[in-house]
């Protein structure tokens, strides 16, 4: 076990989240976006577990568990959508998936 402050853990979490978010905003293909989402979720998980540790309360880890459940669902559904997108457009460029524009 390492003797760290919560601030250090949160910094890690935040940095990873920012990198994920940046990637999400910048990348152009749908699969990379999904991967970046995973990154962001992971960053959030780190924060959850850290707080769980800080307060010595298992609820944070339970939340972690739920988050990965959601993440799994989201990835599965997301990938299925990407698959359909590819079938429809013959590519997975996210800018072209704009059928719902106003």
């Amino acid at each position, binding site marked *: 076990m390492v003797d760290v402050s919560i601030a250090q853990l949160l910094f890690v979490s935040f940095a990873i989240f920012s990198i994920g*978010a940046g990637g999400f*905003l*910048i990348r152009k293909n749908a699969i990379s976006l999904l991967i970046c989402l995973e990154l962001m979720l992971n960053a959030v998980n780190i924060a959850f577990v850290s707080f769980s540790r800080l307060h010595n309360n298992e609820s944070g880890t339970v939340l972690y568990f739920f988050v990965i459940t959601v993440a799994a669902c989201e990835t599965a559904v997301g990938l299925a959508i990407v698959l359909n997108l590819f079938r429809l457009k013959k590519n997975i460029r*996210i*800018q072209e*998936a*704009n*059928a719902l*524009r*106003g």
Partner: protein
Amino acid sequence: MDASLKILSGVAVILPLLGSCIWFWAKNKIGEKITGLAATGTLVISFICCLTLFWQIESSARVEFFSWIWMGSSELVNFSFLLDPLSLALGLIVTGVGSLIHLYATGYMHGDEGFGRFFSYLNLFIFAMLMLIWSDSMPGIFMGWEGVGLCSYLLISFWFSDEANATAGKKAFIVNRVGDFGFLVAMFCIFKAFGTLSIPEVLAIVNSGNLDIVQVGWTQWACLGLVLGAAGKSAQIPLYVWLPDAMAGPTPVSALIHAATMVTAGVYLCCRLQPLFFLNPGVMELIAYIGGLTALFAASIAIFQNDIKKVLAYSTISQLGYMFLAVGLAAPVAAYFHLMTHAFFKALLFLGAGSVIHGLHHEQDMRKMGGLRKQMPITFWTMTIGVLAIAGTPPFAGFFSKDEILHIVSGSHRGLLSNIAFVTAFMTAFYMGRLWIMTFFGKSRGHREAHESPWSMTAVLCVLAALSAFGGLLNWPELWGGNAWLEHYLGQVVTQMDVGHGADALEDSLKLAGFSSLMGLGALGLAWWKYRDYQTQDFRSPAFNLFKNKYYIDEFYDAVIVRNLKRSGEFLWKVVDQGILDGTLNGLAYQAKKTSERFRRLQNGLLQGYALWIWLGVLILMISAWSVR
């Protein structure tokens, strides 16, 4: 006693209404003869009822039926009758002349496809007219008032297939409605002042003299409203324009409604509410001047009309003007007397004219008549009596009644009015002479062979001629040794201005009578000289055009009122409604649409764009959460 009054008056009123429904429903199913005779029969029964009432009732009686308008807290209006000399006398005329005209109409309307409908309307009219004169409350009178207006409307546009007739009916109704508006406002004011609309109660309060200044103020407005109402119904300036057009109806209608009965309702109303008018001398003066001016004005138009019924129509307006004049000078008995004699001789004249028209197969233009003296002798002789009566030739009815009015006018020391009255009397004799001569004398001008009318028509003419001849006996002045029956009879309920007694007054009145009858004969002579060998020539001058076109009053009203009303209708519709109101709303809707168009662009379909917006939202949330802390 009371029950019998109730039954008699009820029967007199209800029978025509029932008859009206039956004739309308039966249409022509039961044959002309039965319809006509039965309709006349109902009227005769009504007349008999009236006569019985007339004998039974000493001074006045009130008959209550059932409550009509109920205000919640109190009874406002009952269906109840006030039977007193004023209403009984007029009731007799309405049912009496009415039954004569019904009889006449069975001949006149023979063969018309709307025969049943015609009698239905006529009977309905009698019902409404009796409601008008017998009701003891303002709304009751108003019901009859509008009812006769409705019948007038229906009967003027009786031959509705002709657009002009329908328009004339509509005009009559609408102009009358202007008057009714005045009547309505008068009712409101009276209710405001006295808290009741029952005429006996109102008159009791007025006669008791316990009025404060506010109440008198309200009565002034009420009287003005009533004058407007009366002017509408009795075709006085400024609302007389409907009556000439009303001649579009069948002639019996013109005789019954537009000469003998309905148009006198205004006079009746003013007499009925005389105490109210006494409170407002200014309004009385107004009535007198309206009457005088109308008399002169209408007579001047009548001289230049060529349609026989139009001449009579303007003559009616002019004679009604006389009655108003008398009312305005606080001489209701004189007005009433003239009303009665006028009912006789004007009905006679109209029916005579109708007989002529009937004989000439619906030719109304006097320029195409002439020389009918021989072909239609009965019509000729009866018409002659009518003309002499209206011209004021002694000893016919018109002489007495008109002379009384002239006497009163000259006794009132209003120079202008008395001049007008005399000039009008002269003009009346002149245009009636013109009508008489153009129709019956000279050579035939272009009409086909005429025939005398059937007995049902000529018999009525004879009866009316007799009435016109001897009607003056009703009110043979006391000054001349008579008993002035009508004056005494009506004197129970109305107050007549005193015109003086004694030898001086007798001398004055004899002078006046002599002068006026000489003037009438002179006018007839002038007409004889002018139209004896009338061919087709006419006056030709700008002034003549002015008269002939009735001073362009119709055109004036059309341009000033009707056209502007139409224009304001278009304006309110197109500009206010569709332009401003709908425009604002549609504009709002359009702006909303535009705005959302603009915001729509934000929805660009780019996933990452949305993510950026989420980031922005998160940022704002965090900042606000932090700053709130």
